[in-house]
């Protein structure tokens, strides 16, 4: 994956590939991921994403689907420099 230049903007991750299953009524909506109608479920496909990351001294893009074939633990947490 091509390295993006490290700029001053606040880069962020985005969902890639097929959208997770949506309610039929939301078909016309764009930017579904921003209205949080996520339908994730155990036993179903994990939504793919690409996002900037810090990894052992380097900045890189991480894409979930690049890790197919391995077990992955994906951990969200509220914030750096918080207490727990």
């Amino acid at each position, binding site marked *: 994956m091509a390295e993006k230049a490290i700029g001053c903007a606040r880069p962020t*991750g985005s969902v890639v590939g097929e959208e997770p299953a949506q309610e039929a009524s939301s078909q016309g909506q764009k930017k579904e991921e921003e209205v949080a109608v996520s339908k994730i479920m155990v036993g179903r496909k994990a939504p793919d994403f690409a996002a900037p990351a*810090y*990894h052992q001294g380097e900045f890189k893009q991480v894409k979930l689907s690049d890790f197919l074939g391995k077990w992955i633990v994906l951990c969200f947490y509220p914030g750096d420099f918080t207490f727990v």
Partner: protein
Amino acid sequence: MMSVSVDTQFVHKIWNETELSKMVEGGVPFPMIADAAGHLGAVYGVYDDEAGVDVRGRFIIDPDGIIQAMEVLTPPVGRKVEESIRQIKAFQHVRETEGAEVTPSGWEPGKKVLKPGPDLVGRVWEVWKPGDE
């Protein structure tokens, strides 16, 4: 293993350098992902748009990209790493046996597994009881 918060990768770098590397020798070994806009948290159902943060959600994803487990906590309580590892080992066992063997509650590697089938219906009590884990 990957971690995700709404902090930028730049903040992740400084947090790792100033604090985490003092807790873990060599610093954090896995990618620390930036979800500054909360897009990833939203699609995984863990973005709190009032607080503007991703809450404590943990997902175990198998080699086919299927979510096998998820756990979501409010911010003040931390997770237990050993429990995630136990679950991964259990899912790996089930996968290796192609579902022929399943793991009862509290299962650890080497402990008794169950073999689902017509003969086991109503007779689990004969082969397993709480405490056998």
